[in-house]
């Protein structure tokens, strides 16, 4: 029986993290589709998904061979690296130190780059490769997140369900709108996902080291809340410092 306290944040983390990655990949595939046609976009996407499926088929079973404590430490560190990285970037963006990621700009830049090669013989190949790389890059992150977040007995399925739901939702909305999903509050999502992954990372590192937190799986929620509040405090601190830095204004 999967514990609700553990499964709910896993589905949420997997869903939100995957949604961020799928939105980014969708923007590039859409640009390829609009500028160079549906064929290179479809072929590039299908090839990348095939490579990802192959990678999962090869490396997935290896995970089962790692002892549980060792796996928890490896996964915990992986989640910390992901989560802290996302949280750091989200805090800097929320604080104004970094510009916000804009899907409309990303779409325009990719379209312009593809249009510049549209007259060449190899234009379709380049467009297909652009879609391939985008899906492979973002897809690899989704695979890592699904495996890392769900790397505990019985939790891989909730993790995969979260990611699949995110893919389905982004694709459904994207196909209906046929334009970049610029309205999705990407930085807020990254903020939340960074806190979720960091919380899981600390929890699993502690379990892997044999020193679990009190309260069992409920400690995950407490850790996520701590990272969220801490991140919000740091974003306010960054805003405060930048507002008082004459060179920044």
């Amino acid at each position, binding site marked *: 029986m999967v514990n609700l306290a553990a499964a709910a944040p896993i589905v949420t983390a997997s869903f939100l993290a995957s949604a961020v990655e799928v939105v980014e990949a969708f923007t590039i595939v859409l640009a390829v589709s609009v500028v160079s046609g549906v064929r290179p976009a479809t072929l590039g996407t299908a090839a990348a998904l095939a490579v990802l499926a192959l990678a999962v088929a090869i490396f997935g079973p290896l995970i089962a061979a790692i002892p549980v404590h060792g796996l928890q430490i490896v996964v915990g560190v992986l989640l910390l690296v992901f989560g802290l990285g996302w949280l750091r970037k989200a805090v800097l963006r929320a604080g104004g*130190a970094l510009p916000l990621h804009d899907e409309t700009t990303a779409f325009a830049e990719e379209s312009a780059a593809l249009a510049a090669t549209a007259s060449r013989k190899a234009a379709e190949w380049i467009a297909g490769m652009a879609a391939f*790389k985008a899906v*492979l*890059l973002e897809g*690899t992150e989704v695979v890592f997140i699904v495996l890392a977040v769900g790397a505990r007995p019985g939790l891989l399925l909730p993790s995969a369900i979260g990611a699949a739901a995110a893919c389905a939702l982004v694709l459904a909305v994207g196909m209906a709108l046929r334009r970049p999903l610029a309205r999705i509050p990407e930085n807020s999502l990254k903020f939340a996902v960074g806190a979720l992954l960091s919380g899981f*990372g600390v929890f699993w590192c502690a379990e892997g*080291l044999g020193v679990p*937190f009190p309260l069992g799986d409920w400690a995950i929620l407490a850790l996520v809340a*701590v990272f969220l509040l801490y991140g919000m405090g740091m974003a306010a601190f960054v805003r405060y410092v930048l507002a008082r830095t004459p060179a920044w204004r």
Partner: protein
Amino acid sequence: MAVITALGATLWKMFAADLFLTLGALATVAGLGLLLHFAILPARQAPFVLAAVILGVLVTAINLAMVKEIRKRIG
């Protein structure tokens, strides 16, 4: 070749691009493991020490990145 390049770029983006956080997380977990192994740190305090040090790593990484951005702006 393109597949290998794309995968390499992904792994770089995921782990090596933010070397401070990657090394910070690894060093924290390894250090805690050593402290526990030699019974220097009581096991009951260990999870809280882990969380506190990780938060410290995060704060340091944010401050370093903020200073880097300010320096970039100054030129």
